């Protein structure tokens, strides 16, 4: 053994004492070393231990020898010894700095750090464990302090990180749903909460006096009835509760007594505490963030420890308060954003509806288009009822889901009108106001159903909400627009109902217009059947073709007419005429004019006489429109032809491939003051053709009448036929386009 040479210059006595100490026997060094030392067999039985260790624990060496190492330890230490120290020694041969508590004779604990090595035989089997123990009371305290500081630092970092993430995520959150996701997920994670929910306060716009409703926007991991219990617990004090700042509700005996319902819900979810943080923006309480803390459903044995319930740290309170403020701001932003988006969407929807309605041609078409549009954008089901003499009829039923279209058809086919006073459509019509069934239940369906089949169809449709809006125009109720949402879509919002009302307003105007139009069309069809002349009679020596084309815009019959009739004797009477206008009045006037003309034919008057009688008798006829007309009488045997015109364009004569106007001098129009009519008297050669027409054939919006007359001559000349039918077709195809502003009557006659 080498030792340090003394060079301190100290005296010989001191040097001698140091020598003595350093050469002390190893046994003393072992026994009195400034650390505990023990050797133990692999099963822990102590075979050697130094005095230092025995002194520390206050027990004699003889008592300690033969005991097992683990028996010197606290209970926690024993478990740690078995589960960590022994396995580590076996596997890596040594352990360092294991914290263990020795139990002194008086039962107090002595904090130690142990190092140990395993002595093995040649086969690697354990022979002995040698362990040194250092007292570590101060060090343990220091370590605990460090650990606490480290945990605190980690917590602090976690909180600031949470807040950072919340702010960052909220910046990207556009909808209320997005905001709710961010807040719920982040706060739940940060607080290690079992569950979290964002609950917004919602006042009922239709009943401002009602207690505000709580609407959970997002809830993760919350027991089902907990939020409702919380709402009930707050009761009428909700507003006060909301203003109270971050609150902790601990499940304890007091709460069990005062709030048994809430306590039961918490206990069922294995929750120990609820933390409620206000969500506000600019001083307005928007709702609350609820965090549910607890171990959750487990079957662990309860460990009663004093102060076992962890109370909310001040830093966490501050964190939640800040998150609540951030959430409030983000919610306001998201609401504005959603509002703007919804308004834009509504505007575009109504615009599209207006455009679509403007294009619609008749009532059936109009409501059908509208229903189609509605189920695309606003609802799942749309029914448009029109009020009629038979009560409500259902011209349009549409469903958004093609798989449920058959249900819509059944609704339409099997459940036609009943004056069921409970039905929202009927009620809407009777009251003249919107009917909004917010939540459809089976009792409602039963009250509305007309029979079992109807009930089944409505059940299958899974109706969740119904809105029926009446529509009217010119003070007349026209029908009801009914929209319905099914269970998959959820309830309607106030905005949805407003859109439906706007739509009903438009629909009323359009339906009123379309109904008028429809009426006119139906009337004109009936008139047409009665007023238009029958096919011309088949006459000896003549070939005749006639065409009648109403103006393309409007009704099918106008004020033009033609007439071919066998007069008493051998002559044939011909007429074309044009009552001013091309509407129902014109058609009616034309009908009357034709009847009067026929009546005049009884004694076979000459054309000039007909014009004269009509002009002089016009005031007696009370006809409301003026008219032009061209009358002729023709003798097929001799070919004698006489014309008289009341303000009407002259006829065309086609002879030998050349066309010309016959110089029939027109007198005044019928309805104008009478004037002396001229009569043209001539002969129609065999093989020649006559073309009688109304000005619809020669007028157009883009060209004047003279040009039209010239084009008619040219077209007639170039026809290359004298067959009346072929000539008619040729003229029409040459002179008319797809759109006619006026009616056309055309009569072609060829003498064989």
């Amino acid at each position, binding site marked *: 053994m080498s030792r340090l040479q003394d060079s301190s210059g100290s005296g010989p006595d001191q040097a001698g004492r140091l020598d003595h100490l350093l050469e002390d026997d190893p046994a003393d060094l072992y026994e009195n070393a400034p650390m505990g030392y023990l050797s133990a067999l692999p099963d822990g039985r102590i075979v050697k231990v130094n005095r230092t260790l025995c002194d520390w624990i206050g027990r004699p060496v003889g008592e300690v020898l033969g005991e097992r190492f683990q028996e010197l330890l606290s209970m926690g230490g024993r478990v740690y010894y078995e*589960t960590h120290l022994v396995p580590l020694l076996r596997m*890596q041969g040594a352990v360092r700095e294991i*914290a263990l508590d020795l139990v002194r004779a008086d039962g107090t604990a002595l904090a130690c750090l142990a190092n140990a090595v395993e002595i093995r035989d040649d086969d690697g089997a354990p022979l002995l464990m040698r362990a040194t123990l250092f007292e570590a009371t101060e060090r343990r305290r220091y370590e*605990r302090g460090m*650990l606490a500081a480290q945990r605190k630092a980690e917590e602090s970092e976690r909180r600031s990180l949470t807040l950072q993430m919340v702010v960052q995520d909220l910046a990207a959150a556009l909808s209320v749903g997005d905001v709710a996701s961010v807040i719920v997920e982040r706060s739940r994670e940060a607080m290690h909460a079992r569950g979290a929910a964002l609950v917004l306060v919602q006042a009922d716009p239709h009943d401002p006096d009602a207690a505000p409703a709580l609407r959970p926007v997002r809830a993760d991991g919350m027991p089902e009835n907990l939020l409702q219990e919380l709402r009930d617990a707050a009761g009428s004090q909700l507003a006060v509760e909301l203003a109270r700042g971050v609150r902790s509700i601990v499940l304890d005996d007091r709460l069990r007594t005062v709030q048994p319902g809430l306590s039961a819900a918490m206990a069922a979810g294995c929750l120990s505490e609820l933390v409620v943080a206000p969500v506000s923006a600019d001083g307005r309480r928007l709702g609350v963030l609820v965090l549910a803390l607890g171990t*959750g459903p487990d079957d*662990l044995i309860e*460990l009663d420890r004093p102060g076992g319930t962890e109370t909310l740290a001040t830093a966490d309170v501050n964190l939640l308060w800040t998150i609540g403020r951030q959430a409030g701001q983000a919610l306001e932003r998201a609401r504005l954003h959603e509002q703007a988006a919804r308004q834009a969407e509504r505007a575009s929807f109504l615009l599209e509806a207006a455009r679509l309605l403007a294009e619609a041609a008749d009532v059936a078409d109009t409501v059908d288009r509208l229903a189609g549009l509605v189920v695309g954008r606003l609802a799942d089901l749309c029914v448009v009822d029109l009020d009629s003499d038979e009560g409500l009829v259902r011209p349009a039923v549409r469903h958004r889901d093609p798989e449920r279209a058959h249900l819509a058809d059944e609704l339409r086919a099997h459940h036609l009108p009943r004056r069921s006073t409970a039905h929202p459509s009927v009620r809407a019509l009777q009251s003249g106001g919107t009917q909004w069934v917010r939540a459809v239940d089976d009792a409602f369906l039963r009250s509305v159903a007309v029979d079992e089949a109807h009930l089944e169809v409505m059940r299958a449709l899974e109706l969740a909400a119904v809105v029926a809006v009446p529509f009217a125009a010119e003070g007349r109720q026209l029908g009801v627009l009914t929209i319905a949402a099914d269970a998959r879509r959820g309830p309607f919002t106030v905005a949805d109902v407003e859109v439906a009302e706007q739509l009903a307003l438009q629909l009323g105007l359009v339906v009123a217009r379309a109904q008028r139009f429809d009426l006119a069309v139906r009337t004109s069809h009936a008139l047409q059947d009665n007023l238009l002349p029958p096919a011309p009679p088949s006459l000896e020596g003549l070939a005749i073709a006639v065409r009648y084309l109403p103006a393309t815009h409007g009704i099918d019959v106008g004020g033009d007419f033609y007439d071919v009739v066998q007069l008493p004797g051998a002559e044939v009477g011909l007429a074309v005429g044009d009552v001013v206008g091309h509407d129902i009045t014109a058609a009616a006037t034309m009908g009357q004019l034709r009847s009067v003309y026929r009546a005049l034919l009884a004694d076979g008057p000459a054309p000039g006489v007909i014009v004269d009688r009509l002009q002089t008798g016009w005031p007696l006829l009370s006809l409301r429109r003026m008219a032009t007309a061209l009358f002729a009488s023709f003798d097929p045997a001799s070919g004698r032809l006489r014309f008289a015109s009341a303000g009407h364009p002259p006829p065309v004569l086609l002879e030998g491939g050349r066309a010309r106007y016959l110089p029939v001098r027109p007198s005044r129009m019928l309805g104008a003051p009478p004037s002396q009519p001229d009569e043209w008297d001539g002969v129609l050669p065999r093989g020649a053709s006559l073309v009688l027409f109304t000005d619809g054939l020669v007028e157009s919006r883009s060209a004047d009448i003279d040009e039209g007359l010239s084009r008619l001559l040219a077209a007639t000349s170039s026809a290359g036929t004298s067959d009346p039918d072929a000539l008619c077709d040729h003229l029409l195809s040459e002179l008319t386009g797809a759109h006619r502003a006026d009616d056309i009557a055309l009569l072609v006659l060829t003498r064989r």
Partner: protein
Amino acid sequence: MMFAHGFGCDQEMWRYVVPEFEGDHRIVLFDHVGSGNSDLSAYDRVKYNSLRGYAADVVEICRELGLTDVVFVGHSVSAIIGVLALQAAPEVFGGLVMIGPSPRYVDDGDYVGGFSRTDIAGLLDALDANHLGWSAQMAPVIMGTPNQPELAAELTNSFCRTDPDITRHFARVTFLSDNRADLATVGVPTLVLQCSEDVIAPEVVGRYVHEQIPGSVFTKLTATGHCPHLSAPEETAAAIRAFLPE
């Protein structure tokens, strides 16, 4: 054969026993989530708040590997995890070996588990004091030799190192579970291996487990302590071998 480590270290615990069975068995070793080299990010405090969470993992491993007729060898808490796995998927297992099992550590009326509630609280404190994960970081600093990583590596009791929060949670779930009622559901041949002088799972607990599992075999080892597969691997392996069908 599937070997499941208990509370404390990881699958390395089986290194002295596994060679005995490698010749005639397919061996499956794994670390419970939260231990050893498992993916700590997969640790879910809710799932692992019950031993059933761990049992679900066992079943998942068996199904993923398409195992049948598995002899499940579980040490300590894993013996109980085996019982729960068997409950969840009886078709997978053919036998159960329970080393140092305890269905409930905390005394309860006449039932002796060996621990009081105060003992468990002390254990959780001991775990905090032995912040092995923390020591792993701090050891070089304390030694004053941060530039000698090999020294640090030697110091950091590597096999038992894990996240301290997870260790603490696992300890809670392990020592505060009560699975006595589940024992009777075991329907496969079962071996209860009981050590001598085991403070964690005393013999009275082992006998209780044996009595509750119908038709189970009880073998008492001369090995002492709680880890016979480490302290007496030959004896442990022989006892398991004797239990296995020829």
